[in-house]
Structures are given as structure tokens and as C-alpha cells.
């Protein structure tokens, strides 16, 4: 046990393993953060398509399109989506893109499918009178959504969005499938040096745990700030 610990420390500090770990941590956070940002943008657009009145033909077509989109990204594993993107789609398009960019894009697309449901529920939790008041003043549907309804839905959405971020952080552990060196990959390399995995993987788990707890704490603090600025809601 002590030998394993010493080997781990040697790999980590003396043989430069910490560089990989730090870069891996950066990659993990980058993929999750940018993935979530893309996911929020896509998710908001999908949610708008879902809640917009379906009188005209265009919203109906769009709804079918987003149904297929959401169905695909929720119905297949993230790993498969990564593999398809990196090993199938990229060669097909004939372009070379850094694998971390691919990971960010796939995570964004995947997250968008989940965030859309979060956003839809959040938008529908806002009193319909708010939309009506905006429309009655002559504002367009989109303007009323962006200025009135969505800002109010954020408060309801925030905790669930925090959970989505935590899910993304944990799911990034599969990105080494497409040759991204993330946190998991970095620790696996350290273990592979001596074929001793006990210490690296326990430490890896702890690092994820601390990461997730920090995010949870951050979300709670943001929530509290929202609560403070939120004035007593009454009709």
C-alpha cells in the first residue's frame, strides 16, 4: 500500500504527471462549461419552438425537427455520439478539428436536448399573464419571451441547470474515447506506469467528488443571491 502510494507520488510529481492532471482538469472543466453554454443556447431555442403557438406551418415543421434532434441525443449514449462525431462525421466532412473541440460540440448538442426540457418547464412556470401583457403592448412573441418570460423563468431553472452542469462534469470522463486527455485519462496514465490502479483511481474519484461539491456550493450561492434580489412574488 505504501509502495503504491510512493509510486503514485513519484509519477505525479517527479515524472510530470501533475501536468497531465492539471491539463486534464482544464479539459474536463472546459468541455463541461462550454458544453453547458452551447446546451443552454440550443435548449432555449428548442424550448421556444416547443412553447410557441402552432398556428402556422413553420413552427409545426420546426417542432418535428427538434423532436428528431431531442430523440436522437437522448436516445443514444454520449460515447456513441462522440465516436460518431469524431470518427464518422469529421472524416465524412473531410475537416480536421481538435478532438477537444469535437467533445465540446457533442457535449453542447447533447446537453441542448436535456436543457430544452428544463427550459420548457421553466418557461411554462411563468404566469401566462406576463406574456399576454407584453403582447397586448404590441411586443412581438420573441421580444416578450426574451425580455419578460425567460428572465423570470431563470430563477426556476437555475437549480436544475446546476444539476445538468454536474452531470456534464461527470460525463466528460468518457472523452478519452476520442483521444482527449481529461482528468480520467490523466490518472489512468499514472496508473498504467506501474499497473497499479488503486491509489490513482481513488484519488480520481475524490477529485471528481470535490469538483462536484464545489459546483453544488457555487450553484447554491448563486441561488441565494437570486433569492435575495427576488422580491416577494404576489399577483
Amino acid at each position, binding site marked *: 500500500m505504501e509502495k503504491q502510494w510512493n509510486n503514485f507520488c513519484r509519477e505525479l510529481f517527479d515524472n510530470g504527471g501533475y501536468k497531465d492532471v492539471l491539463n486534464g482538469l482544464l479539459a474536463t472543466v472546459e468541455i463541461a462549461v462550454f458544453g453547458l453554454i452551447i446546451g443552454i443556447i440550443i435548449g432555449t431555442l428548442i424550448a421556444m419552438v416547443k412553447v410557441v403557438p402552432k*398556428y402556422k406551418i413553420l413552427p409545426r415543421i420546426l417542432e418535428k425537427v427538434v423532436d428528431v434532434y431531442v430523440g436522437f441525443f437522448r436516445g443514444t449514449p454520449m460515447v456513441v455520439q462522440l465516436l460518431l462525431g469524431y470518427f464518422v462525421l469529421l472524416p465524412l466532412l473531410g475537416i480536421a478539428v481538435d478532438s477537444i473541440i469535437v467533445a465540446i460540440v457533442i457535449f453542447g448538442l447533447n446537453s441542448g436536448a436535456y436543457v430544452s426540457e428544463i427550459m420548457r418547464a421553466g418557461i411554462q412556470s411563468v404566469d401566462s399573464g*406576463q406574456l*399576454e*401583457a*407584453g403582447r*397586448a*403592448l*404590441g411586443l412581438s412573441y420573441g421580444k416578450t419571451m426574451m*425580455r419578460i418570460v425567460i428572465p423570470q423563468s431563470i430563477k426556476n431553472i437555475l437549480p436544475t441547470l446546476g444539476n445538468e452542469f454536474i452531470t456534464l462534469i461527470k460525463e466528460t470522463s468518457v472523452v478519452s474515447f476520442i483521444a482527449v486527455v481529461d482528468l480520467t485519462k490523466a490518472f489512468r496514465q499514472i496508473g498504467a506506469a506501474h499497473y497499479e490502479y488503486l491509489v490513482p483511481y481513488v484519488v480520481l474519484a475524490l477529485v471528481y467528488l470535490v469538483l462536484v461539491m464545489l459546483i453544488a456550493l457555487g450553484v447554491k450561492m448563486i441561488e441565494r443571491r437570486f433569492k435575495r434580489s427576488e*422580491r416577494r412574488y404576489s399577483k
Partner: protein
Amino acid sequence: MNVDTQNDDNVLIKVRNLRKSFDKQEVLKGVNLDVHTGEKIAIIGPSGCGKSTFLRCVNCLEDPDGGSIMFEGEDLADMKVDINIHRQRIGMVFQQFNLFNNLNVLDNITLAPIIVAKRNRKKGQTVKEIKEKEQEKAYKLLEQIGLADKAKAYPSTLSGGQKQRIAIIRALAMNPKVMLFDEPTSALDPEMVGEVLDLMKKLANDGMTMVIVTHEIGFAREVANKIIFMNDGVIEEENAPEQFFAHPSSPRLKEFLSKVL
């Protein structure tokens, strides 16, 4: 019952054969109404008679199923018409106030005027100038109702009466040609009804064209120059207030008045 006796030129809104159903329930069964410039029309009737639905159809918050609503030379019931342009000229006040909860009072009032002014912006006019001009206008309106000190307050910190009065001047800030009121005092505590009715009276005296769905019979009698009784999806009776209350002709109106007066 003849609605076309007045000069046609000052008819602001001409509603003809307006129909609306929710699922299979027919709520409006062909409503005809002329709203003349400067007129104050009060709509009364039992609950479920379609009076709120009628008002909401006038600015297409509910899309009518049939009939026409002529306003400024266009038929609002026609789905091809850009309804947003016309809604800017038709103020609406809701039972539940519907102030924007995420904006303070000043932003509530200036949001829509600033967006419109930006769109119609003259050459050389900066966004800052537009904002300042609209805010100045909003402060003037707030001063008129004695709530200038609430400009930076959020809606949830205000009383119902304050909210509704701000909702009214929010609509006024768009310089509407007509104001629609959908039971503006029904959600208010009794002691706050007066302040809202007073503001509406002032508006009426200033010559605003108003269509008011209300349960305040006394207010209707005092302010309106035409009272409409709706029942079962149609206008059953309309008359000047004196005749309306003194000589109701329809038996159902007589019954209704006997209950509410």
C-alpha cells in the same frame, strides 16, 4: 338597438358578427359593436356571458373564429394583418394587473415605448436620447398618479391598487387611441377599488376612448355614455345609462339588474 345612428367617420372600432368558440363551446355568437372616438362603453353581464372573451378578441389576445374587427382601416381578425402594430394603439388593462415582475416600475412603463421608438428612430437620434425621453414621459405619468417615488420599486412591493394604476399608465405611455379594461377592479381589495376608478374617471374626462368590462355598476352608470348588456354570447341590450337602468327592455337584463343593484 340601432348602432349606426352616429356619424360613421368617427367610428374607431367597428366589430361585425364576431364569433369565438373554445373547443365546441361557442362563447361569442356574432357580436356587433361600434366604438366611436371619445366614447366610454361599459360592458356588463353575468359571468360566462363572453364579455371578457369579447374584449380579448378585440386586440386578438384570443383569435376570433369569424367576423371582422375594423380598426384604422384594417381588419384585425385577418391573420395576415400585423397585429403588433395595432396593439400599440390599443391599450389593455388586465384584471390581474400583469406588471412585469422582473422589471421595476419605470422599466415596466418604458419597455414597450422604447422598443417602438427605437424601431421608428429618426436620423441622428441616439438610443440614450430615446431612453431619456421615454423615462421623462414615464416620470410625468407617475407624478400624475402620485407614484413617482415608486419608479425604482419592483411590482411585488406594491399594493394591488398601485399595481393597477401603474398598469394603466403603462398602457397610456404607448399613446393608445382606445383603452380596453378587463374587469380592472375585480382582483383588488375593496379599499383600493376607489383609487383605480378615480384614475379611470380622470382618463374618461380627458377624452380617452374606453371599453370597460366591469362589475362596478355604479361606476358604469356614472362614467359610461353607453352600457352594453351581454348574455349568452350576444349583445342583448345597449343604451345610454339613464334609459338602460330606468327602462331595461330585455327580461334577462331586468333579472340581472335586480340581482346586482
